[in-house]
């Protein structure tokens, strides 16, 4: 039996569509990789401008050697009580520094990134915020990224 196929045909009922796969292969061993963190959890320096809890597409840069006590969260989309006790719950910077020291990874990306996910202007995230962070990481020769979100 042959099936007729119509390009672009879709249901009238709205259903979320999973986007096409994206993939960048890993080419190094962990011990040779510089790893960065990008988090949607609203992490930033205490000295930085807070995120607008109603929706914010901006992002904050966090130097790799920032002490954990100089960091905070502003995010309106989840219970912040755990992350207020210990930033490493969502931004495991101390753990990553320990793993670099132990030689498990080569080192950290010089700059980590914090933004407020879970809402905001999806279009801006897709066409501006995401690509901007990606290009900055690319320019710093970062080999892999751990993210916390969702």
């Amino acid at each position, binding site marked *: 039996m042959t099936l007729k196929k119509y390009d672009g045909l879709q249901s009238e009922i709205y259903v*979320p569509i*999973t*986007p*096409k*796969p*994206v*993939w*960048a*292969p*890993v080419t190094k*061993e*962990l011990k040779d990789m510089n*790893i960065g963190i*990008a988090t*949607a*959890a609203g992490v930033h320096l205490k000295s930085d401008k807070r995120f607008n809890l109603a929706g914010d597409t901006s992002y904050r840069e966090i130097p790799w050697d920032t002490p954990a006590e100089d960091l905070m969260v502003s995010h309106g989309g*989840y*219970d*912040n*009580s*755990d*992350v207020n*006790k*210990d930033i*490493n*719950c*969502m*931004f*495991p910077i101390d*753990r*990553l520094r*320990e*793993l670099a020291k132990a030689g*498990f*990874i080569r080192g950290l990306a010089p700059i980590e990134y914090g*933004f407020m*996910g879970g809402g905001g202007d*999806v279009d801006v*995230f*897709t066409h501006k*915020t*995401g*690509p901007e*962070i*990606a*290009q900055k*990481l*690319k320019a710093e020769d*970062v*080999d*892999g*990224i*751990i*993210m*916390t*979100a*969702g």
Partner: protein
Amino acid sequence: MIVQRAIESAGIPTILIAALPPVVRQNGSPRAVAPRVPMGANAGEPNNVEMQTGIVKDTLKQLVSIESAGKIVPLPYEYIAKV
């Protein structure tokens, strides 16, 4: 997941530590791990260095070993927040 996909598209491999795996699947995350944690403590219980180290190490191992896009690997750590 939008930002994860942007970074991956730029050629840098990424892995997401997720508390809500179904959301991650829906949004097309290339690689993810899912410890049993509540949203807000994705990388483990506050001040539990052992659990956080385990989660981060296992996440990095999966970054290297996951072979195809869309895979979500459960991690054997559990933290139940007292609400």
